[in-house]
């Protein structure tokens, strides 16, 4: 993967931003099932880290997966359709917002439970000598789950090719990190001898650079690495459940990754990108809306083989 152009990065982040904003705007219209967890404010993480993804690499995501999915290359139409319970959804409407599966992209809504999966995938790729690496995205809240540490231990012990990306958005649902986390995030990796870098930024260029180093380390075959990104989400945990101080959110708005990066792009070019993305997002939701709902007649048994 070569150097990223400013325009490409801006487009990548804006696609996620506008997709997620559209989801939140349209949720009250009753077009989506269940709930959702948007990525607004964290766009630079997915775009910066996954810029270095090779076509065959594997991404394991979590409940807040839309941004990772779009940055991975997933279809915006397929994602909108999945949220709307359409047959054309990424998983035919079976998974919904937090259970996405496409090519080598895997997301699951159980916090922490995906980390041993990612570690097992890394073991598989190491045994197969495929050269693929695994990107395992978790958040600060997930650090409360015990199986995460079992996985860090085995990933380090067996020198597995997995990059753990911790997006610390400072809140586990409603609980601030100060009330959730003893010690430090870095200390958790250091305890297992996993090299860890931290970036205190929402600037996609800084994330890009740090991610490149961490990923190079993983690709070198010496074992896992970790990247901690200190970030912030502007939107609620899911939809209407925000109890944070509005003044705090406003302060972080100054660190909006799109605002920071927009200044690097010629206004005319920026405007063109924005128009493109508006059209792409509108078309994705419009197409999904027109698709037929998932058909109960297509439900398959839970086991491959009949008795």
């Amino acid at each position: 993967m070569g150097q990223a152009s400013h325009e490409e990065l801006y487009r990548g982040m804006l696609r996620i931003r506008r997709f997620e904003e559209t989801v939140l705007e349209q949720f009250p219209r009753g077009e989506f099932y269940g709930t959702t967890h948007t990525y607004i404010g964290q766009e630079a993480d997915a775009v910066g880290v996954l810029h270095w993804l090779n076509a065959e690499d594997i991404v394991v995501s979590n409940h807040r997966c839309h941004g990772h999915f779009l940055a991975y290359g997933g279809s915006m139409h397929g994602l909108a359709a999945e949220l709307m319970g359409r047959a054309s959804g990424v998983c035919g409407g079976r998974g919904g917002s937090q259970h996405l599966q496409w090519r080598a992209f895997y997301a699951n809504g159980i916090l922490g439970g995906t980390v041993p999966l990612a570690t097992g995938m890394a073991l598989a790729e190491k045994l197969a000598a495929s050269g693929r690496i695994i990107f395992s995205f978790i958040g600060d809240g997930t650090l409360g789950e015990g199986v995460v540490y079992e996985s860090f231990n085995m990933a380090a012990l067996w020198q597995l090719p997995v990059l753990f990306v911790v997006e610390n958005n400072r809140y586990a649902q409603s609980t601030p990190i100060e009330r959730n986390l003893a010690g430090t995030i870095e200390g958790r990796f250091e305890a297992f001898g996993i090299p860890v870098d931290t970036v205190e930024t929402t600037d996609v260029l800084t994330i890009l650079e740090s991610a490149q180093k961490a990923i190079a380390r993983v690709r070198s075959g010496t074992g896992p690495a970790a990247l901690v990104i200190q970030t912030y989400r502007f939107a609620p945990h899911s939809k209407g459940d925000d109890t944070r101080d509005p003044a705090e959110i406003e302060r972080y708005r100054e660190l909006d990754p799109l605002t920071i990066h927009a200044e690097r792009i010629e206004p005319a070019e920026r405007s063109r990108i924005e128009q493109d993305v508006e059209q792409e997002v509108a078309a994705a939701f419009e197409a999904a809306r027109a698709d037929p709902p998932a058909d109960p007649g297509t439900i398959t048994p839970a086991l491959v083989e009949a008795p």
Partner: protein
Amino acid sequence: MTSVLERLNQGLLACLQASGQVVVLGEDLVDPYGGAFKVTHGLSTRFPERVLGSPVSEAGIVGIGVGLALRGFRPVVEIMFGDFLMLAGDQLLNHAAKLRWMSNDQVTVPLVVRTPMGGRRGYGPTHSQSLEKHFLGAPGLRTVALTALGDPAQQLEQAVLRNDDPLLFVEHKLLYALQAGLELPEFDLQQDGRRYPAYHLRLRGAPPPALTLAAYGYSAELARQAIFDLAYQYEIFADLVVPTQLSPFDDPPLLESLSQTGRLLTVEEGSTRLGWGAECVARMTERLGPNLRAVRVGAAETPIPAAGSLEAATLPQVEDILDAARRLAGSP
């Protein structure tokens, strides 16, 4: 004689030899120790890269098994005692059992989790349980119970090499020392040819049976002793049906015998409340209606004690089966 344990060991070796995709993972299974019950003994010496000793991390290793399975391997994860399966419950039920289906059938999870279950060895409350009943109701997870009838190696090879679903393979500890493929000259033994077969036993030359016993795992050994005693001590003749696939539940093996006897006695080592026997009775009642009478035998509704005298009182014994069978046979 070849023991069940030896055949399981040979079966795992055959799986490793047959397919480079088979990976065996678990605690303390590397030689010279070779596993707490020695099922994996010698395997790590033959296949050091694919037989991996793990830290004490049951949730982690089952999750690693899921990850391996998603990426094209056929992992076999050993959980040292079935009691510890609860630590891996999230991995089994929220990940392994769902991933294929919720991805709209885009992936498969050919994972086998093997584990010794059961008591009668004085290991006490947390190393003696038969916890499989808690997993039997989960869609997307197949549960198979080892039996000494037939060939344990074949049962395992079927599960590991020719199965694309997550599968829980339950091995009662007391089966390990028994002879594999028991020779039973007093019985007619039939196997129904299913992928995970059910076995049907009847005393050779006996009159038509008055009742049907259903049991799996080591309980099937107790039930087999019981139908022998029922015949020779009480002149009550019974069939015994021994399924190996517990979940999904398969009606025909039981139905065939019950359509003749109309009386069902289930024997399980787990507690009976909301258990396997309860499902047998419910399923057969749905099929046979008022023509069915049923009794369940199982463990007491307490934890399993360590002291031999107490343990024997809480787990079902041959005597309990005989008492229940006589009540059932004598009832109008």
